[in-house]
């Protein structure tokens, strides 16, 4: 039972990160029906930038909280710029093109970002500086580390903030209007180009935070880390119902828990045939399962392909 609860906590941590990334996919998808393949790479850039900044600043003797904050800010600024540029360069010119075109630029772009990262940070694994407190609380046999606590709480706050933004502010209203019908939204005075750009920027900011969480949680960064993470977060978005914000959050948390529990128990369940090195396969199984049995996701509305 302790193992179960422990894996649940680990899963929730992981799930919070997936949820933040999944929000980026789902926001873009909701507004322009496009899978932004490059989103995973944005997370990677955020992670590596934060790692470098935190390492550099704490090397200069900055106090840890300040260095971490600076790292997060630097990652956010860079990722937001990146998101803006990606939309401008790769997606905006192709809005009227056949559907295959933006998918191909997206995969091209994610390769470019990966290779640029490999040029800047090298091909090796980068370790996160051991500056964060390794404190933890033990609660009924379950260990919750400080980092896990911070990740879960921070992700929760950010998601709540995002929901308020989308439901209560003028920008949120413009986003919802654009998602529903861009042409009519434009006639009603919404600057849809600006809204779409802002959606990308917002999603990238979330990706940056998620990136910082990933490196500080696993203590390691690599130029290919965005790929699997992106794939899983996308799965989370589909699981929750793509285009649906609470769905992405739910999907992320669920996927994290499924993965953690699966990795913990698969060895016992299959008599040792499959080990935890198959944990990356779970997300994929979930994706296929959802697509087969419930393609609209848990909270998604029935999607009709538009004529």
């Amino acid at each position, binding site marked *: 039972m302790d193992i179960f609860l422990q894996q649940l906590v680990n899963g929730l941590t992981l799930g919070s990160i997936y949820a933040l990334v999944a929000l980026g996919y789902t926001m873009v998808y909701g507004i322009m029906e*496009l*899978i932004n*393949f490059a989103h995973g790479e944005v997370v990677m850039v955020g992670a590596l930038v934060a790692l470098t900044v935190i390492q550099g600043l704490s090397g200069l003797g900055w106090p840890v909280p300040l260095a971490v904050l600076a790292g997060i800010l630097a990652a956010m600024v860079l990722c937001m710029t990146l998101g803006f540029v990606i939309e401008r*360069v*790769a997606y905006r*010119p*192709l809005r009227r*093109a*056949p*559907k*295959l*075109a*933006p*998918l*191909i*630029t997206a*995969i*091209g*772009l*994610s*390769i*470019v970002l*990966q*290779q*640029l990262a*490999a*040029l800047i940070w090298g091909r090796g694994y980068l370790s996160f500086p051991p500056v964060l407190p390794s404190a933890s609380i033990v609660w009924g046999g379950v260990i919750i580390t400080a980092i896990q606590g911070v990740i879960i709480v921070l992700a929760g706050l950010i998601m709540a903030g995002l929901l308020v933004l989308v439901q209560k502010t003028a920008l949120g209203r413009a986003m919802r209007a654009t998602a529903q019908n861009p042409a009519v939204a434009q006639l009603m005075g919404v600057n849809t180009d600006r809204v779409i750009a802002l959606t990308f920027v917002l999603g990238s900011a979330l990706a940056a935070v998620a990136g910082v969480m990933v490196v500080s949680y696993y203590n390691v960064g690599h130029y290919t880390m965005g*790929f*699997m993470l992106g*794939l899983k977060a*996308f*799965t989370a978005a*589909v699981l929750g119902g793509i285009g649906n914000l609470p769905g992405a959050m739910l999907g992320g948390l669920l996927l994290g828990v499924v993965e953690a529990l699966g990795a913990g128990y698969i060895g016992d369940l299959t008599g*040792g*045939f499959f*080990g935890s*090195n*198959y944990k*990356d*396969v779970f*997300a*994929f199984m979930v*994706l*296929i399962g959802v*697509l*087969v049995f419930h*393609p609209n996701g848990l909270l998604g509305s029935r*999607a009709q*392909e538009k*004529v």
Partner: protein
Amino acid sequence: MGRSRSLGLAVVAIMLLALPFVTDAALGHSWVRILDFALLYVLLALGLNIVVGYAGLLDLGYVAFFAVGAYCYGLLASPHFDLHWPLWVLLPMGAMLAASFGVLLGTPTLGLRGDYLAIVTLGFGEIIRIFLNNLNTPVNITNGPQGVSLIDPLRIGPWSLGQVHHLGGFDVPVVVNVYFLFLLGVLLAVVLSRRLERSRIGRAWAAIREDEIAAASMGLHTRNLKLLAFAMGASFGGLSGGLFAGFQGFVSPESFTLQESVMILCMVVLGGMGNIAGVVLGAILLSVLPEALRAAGSLQQDLLGHVWVDPSNLRMLLFGLALVLMMLLRPEGLLPARARQRELHG
């Protein structure tokens, strides 16, 4: 067939037959080997072209089918299981196995929106690699990261392509033997692609590609047709996988990364989706490119005293850029299909 056209074909045929000998004499074995690989890539690109170019479905894990074919050959014709099945069983088997994987993967996804397929195939490409890497315990099936080695060389009846033959005073080296087998495969694929493109099925694919809803309302069974395209493309991948395994004598999960899938996609996009000549051109250009880039590596060493940009890094960077730029500037490719050109430029 017009007289000039058959003359043209004859010239091309003679050139294709003479090419490996001339290359061997002028540049040596290693360049014939590059030619062999170029042919293999042509085969792969033609297969992906059926999926992406004809049916308009984006497959980002195409290399998985290549892997299926390669492991099928590798496992059943090597000391690993001590099985040594003949080529004429293994090649069709690899192709069919790959096709059935394609159907398995396509069935849940092809009825849905097009972009789901892209991400599912992307995942599938990685998953296959995870399985190949880990299916060595507790029962050793794939031999894990070490891969399968000592695979039987390609052999047609008593004729092993893995050794030098003497024909009428000529020495025919291994790489040249293989060249002809691969050329045969490519020709088969070209003929098949051409016939398919102009058949009822090919026209149905074009209709689905251009407007799926319209195609469905004209009575086309879109899901089955897409599944057919997917399986057909996969079978080309499986076939070239088998050829690859027999030629290399060794397969490991390392050969089947996302980068390979992207490279094959790049060949199709750069050359011209849906046009056989374009795809062939794209495949040849991009499979020779790494050789040119190797020179770029040593050039940097000479000029700057240090390799700043690793050639394999540079290669992927160029592929990524090519995908983006082609879509933005010349979406029809270098050698466009006629229909596609009309669509894009009125």
